[in-house]
């Protein structure tokens, strides 16, 4: 099958972000689409990932070995990224090979060959990677946390698919997704490094011209539903001396009026090494090497989560402590002193979001891809400075729930189930799932 694009049409708007930096003979490139794995049809999870990786392999009608050799010879790297809301390619190349590398990217976008044997090989490879992922307890915990917290929502579906969904994928599915998603209107090109804006824009035009004109995809997903009560999932894996513990609920959306206030409050609770969570769990008790809370964003409301990994014997007490801390945070909020400290940290450390051309371009790209409010990054420091104590505490009270939450723990169920269930007051549901359930 072939997916060659029609003749160029230069009327469509050009999505290009550039930043010139002559410091190093290096160019970083991102070719990002405004759509991601949420487009995978139900039961065909993994399709977007297979498509992106297939495009990279069979670019220009060449076979995968040839393309791998070209990437290496040019001093480049080229990887495919897939997330629920976005997908695309990220690349780096030594500046002297830039022009030739852009030709390879044009082939990747506009002239992938949809070859049946490569498609089937790729499915088998991803299946092998899914089995391999069973060795990683942290990744197992995150997989089940997302699956249960976002049940029924695209964020809860596995981006790389399941053994069953991979089996169902057919080459025609990939071609159909390519024709639907790989259109000029969905493409944003970003360039950082030793490439002038004029040259980058010409490259973006060339890349865009490889694609068809089509409809810009709009996100249709609604916000995920809040968990009902306090639920526990134990991912049962034999012979664990330690657990992987995730506690969370729904979090924030960049368009929330209290988005920045919640971000500041989370910094105090678990966002840094001296935050409450690290101090209580790690510094005072030594129960876990890592202890953090996070608040990522996406196009729909995403998760708030706390992560620790206490040894099996400490799992119950550690979980109880974390739930108590969560309740205290929600009910009593943060102090003025903590707020002032967090603002200083966030404003000063923002320098490290901007210290390279690649990072600055990445922020601009995020603003486009996630449709962030105008000035999201440019006005970040002033927005943080403006957060008041009441705003921070109201944000925690209204967005974070200590009553409706999900606890996911990877460990040996026979060792931890009793203490863990006992640690959760008002537990409304508990299940034990086998670690190798990849459904």
């Amino acid at each position, binding site marked *: 099958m072939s997916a060659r694009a029609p003749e160029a049409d230069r009327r469509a708007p050009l999505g290009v972000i550039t930043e010139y*930096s002559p*410091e*190093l003979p*290096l160019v970083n490139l991102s070719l990002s689409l405004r759509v991601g794995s949420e487009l995978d049809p139900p039961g065909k999870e993994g399709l977007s990932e297979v498509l992106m990786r297939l495009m990279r392999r069979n670019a220009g009608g060449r076979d*995968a*070995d040839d393309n*791998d*050799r070209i*990437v*290496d*010879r*040019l*001093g480049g*790297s080229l990887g495919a990224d897939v997330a629920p809301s976005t997908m695309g390619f990220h690349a*780096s*190349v*030594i500046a002297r090979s830039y022009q030739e590398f852009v030709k390879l990217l044009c082939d990747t976008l506009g002239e992938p060959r949809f070859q049946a044997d490569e498609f089937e090989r790729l499915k*088998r*490879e991803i299946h*092998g*990677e899914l*089995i*391999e992922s069973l*060795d990683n*307890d942290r990744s197992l915990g995150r997989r089940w946390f997302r699956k249960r917290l976002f049940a029924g929502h695209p964020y809860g579906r596995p981006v790389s698919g399941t053994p069953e969904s991979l089996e169902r994928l057919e080459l025609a599915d990939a071609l159909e997704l390519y024709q639907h998603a790989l259109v000029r209107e969905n493409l944003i090109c970003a360039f950082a490094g030793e490439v002038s804006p004029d040259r980058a824009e010409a490259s973006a035009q060339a890349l865009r011209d490889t694609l068809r004109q089509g409809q810009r995809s709009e996100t249709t997903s609604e916000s995920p539903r809040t968990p009902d009560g306090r639920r526990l999932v134990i991912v049962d*894996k*034999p*012979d*664990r*001396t*330690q657990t992987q513990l995730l506690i969370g609920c729904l979090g924030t959306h960049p368009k929330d009026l209290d988005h920045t206030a919640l971000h500041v409050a989370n910094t105090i609770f678990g966002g*840094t*090494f*001296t935050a409450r969570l690290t*101090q209580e769990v*790690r*510094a005072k*008790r*030594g*129960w*876990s*090497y890592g202890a953090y809370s996070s608040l990522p964003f996406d196009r729909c409301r995403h998760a708030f989560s706390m992560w620790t*990994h*206490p*040894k099996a014997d400490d799992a119950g007490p550690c979980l109880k402590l974390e739930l108590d801390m969560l309740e205290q945070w929600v009910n009593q909020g943060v102090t003025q002193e903590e707020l002032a*400290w967090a603002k*200083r*940290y966030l404003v*000063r*450390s*923002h*320098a*490290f979001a*901007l*210290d*390279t051309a*690649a990072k600055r371009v990445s922020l601009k790209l995020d603003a486009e891809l996630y449709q962030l409010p105008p000035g999201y990054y440019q006005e970040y420091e002033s927005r943080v400075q403006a957060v008041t104590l009441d705003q921070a505490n109201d944000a925690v009270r209204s967005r974070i729930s200590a009553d409706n939450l999900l606890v996911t723990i990877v460990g040996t169920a026979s060792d931890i189930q009793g203490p863990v269930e006992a640690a959760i007051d008002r537990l409304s549901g508990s299940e034990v799932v*086998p670690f*190798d*359930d990849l459904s």
Partner: protein
Amino acid sequence: MRAQVESTAQGGSANGDARQPRLDKLNAEAPRYGKVTHLGTLPFGPALKIERFTLNNGLSVLLVEDHAAPVVAYHVWFRVGSRHERQGKTGLAHLFEHLMFNEVEGLPAGEFDRKMEEAGAESNASTWLDWTQYNEAIPKDQLSLVIELEALRMSRLVLREPQVASEKEVVANERRYRVDDDVEGAVNELLWKTAFQTHAYHWPTIGWMSDIEGFTVDDCVDFYRTYYSPNNATVVVVGDVSEAQLLRELSAAYGEIPPAELPLEDVRPEPPQVDERRVEVTQPTTTQKLVVGYKSPGIGDFDHPALSLLSEVLFGGRASRVYKRLVRDLELCSEVRAFLGPFRDPGLFEIFASARGEHTAEEILKVIDEEMAKVREAPPNADEIDRARARLELGLVAGLETADGKASTIGFYETVLGDPSASFTRLEGMARINQSDLLRAARRYLVESGRSLVLVRPQLATEEEAA
């Protein structure tokens, strides 16, 4: 003065012309150990240069002025790693990486980090076989605070029972996370334990669990007094700084710290390995794994860059020989990768392979053996070597994007090789490596008698397999 120094203060730059009178003035007022000497200037890539200084307590200072962004990377590298430990006290160097963030005189536990974070610093630390390093990335206007705090913890660390007990527990949990409950971590530890029977590379940097549990406050105090001294350290500063101000502040902050008498390093060389060593274990995993470690040269050895290129030819990326055969063509593996140790003494060229489905470690080993035999028989062709060089060049350049990346590169090569710009000289040297060098390296190192193997049998079956 070190051999690689290219020029001294008479370099003709604005800094160079003004430097000596400025240093004379600074030294006239400096504290006892705070007198600064400029030792020379080194190129760091095409655009930057490293200025090398020393204080008269032996503290080395390497400075790269880089005004690309209003930030500074401040690293302190100590020439102490797990190789300096002894049996029964393994993991002490790594425990220190934790303790150094705890209490210092005048600052209760937690205050060090709190002040760093309030300044907007990103701070961390790491320990390996040959070294321990502490790093901060900071907005440029916060440099003074970091200098003050780093100097304070070099000389005024408080080591008491509660801090030591708590950090021992944290390290034990780190070990469970990275080793005991991690198949690859556990197998890697077993590989080094098998391959090294005399040298200190035998034990893991994180230490054996029984040693971690047994550390006392006295162990920690002894270790601190022995190794945490200015004459055992290098401060690397990269970023938007003024040389004059930096030297003034370093002199004031570190100038009261006396040098220590450093002990002789009591490391015994590993005797040559003459027979393959093979260990078989079961692990809680669903597929077989194979880990191979070929004895490899130290990073300063002439053969090390040649072996780096061979590693890329064989395992670097999807087009490499072994990856292509095992993952793509034969579909025996879901993952294959290799790593050539960047260590001062001879280490290991490690290969990790994870089997797909029911395939076995023996099947994987057969393919690896075939490919090793080929590179011992005939060197890679010119195209393969060019691709390997290009991959290594990209890796180097991409690692230098941030001030922190530059400081890491400089500090690492200074500590391990005594040459802070060695990353670039190594890359230039690779352009001169020819097929004969690769053939010699393959025949010298990629031999069965010099390797150790760990074959991992799965203890678990997936639901699919059970059915």
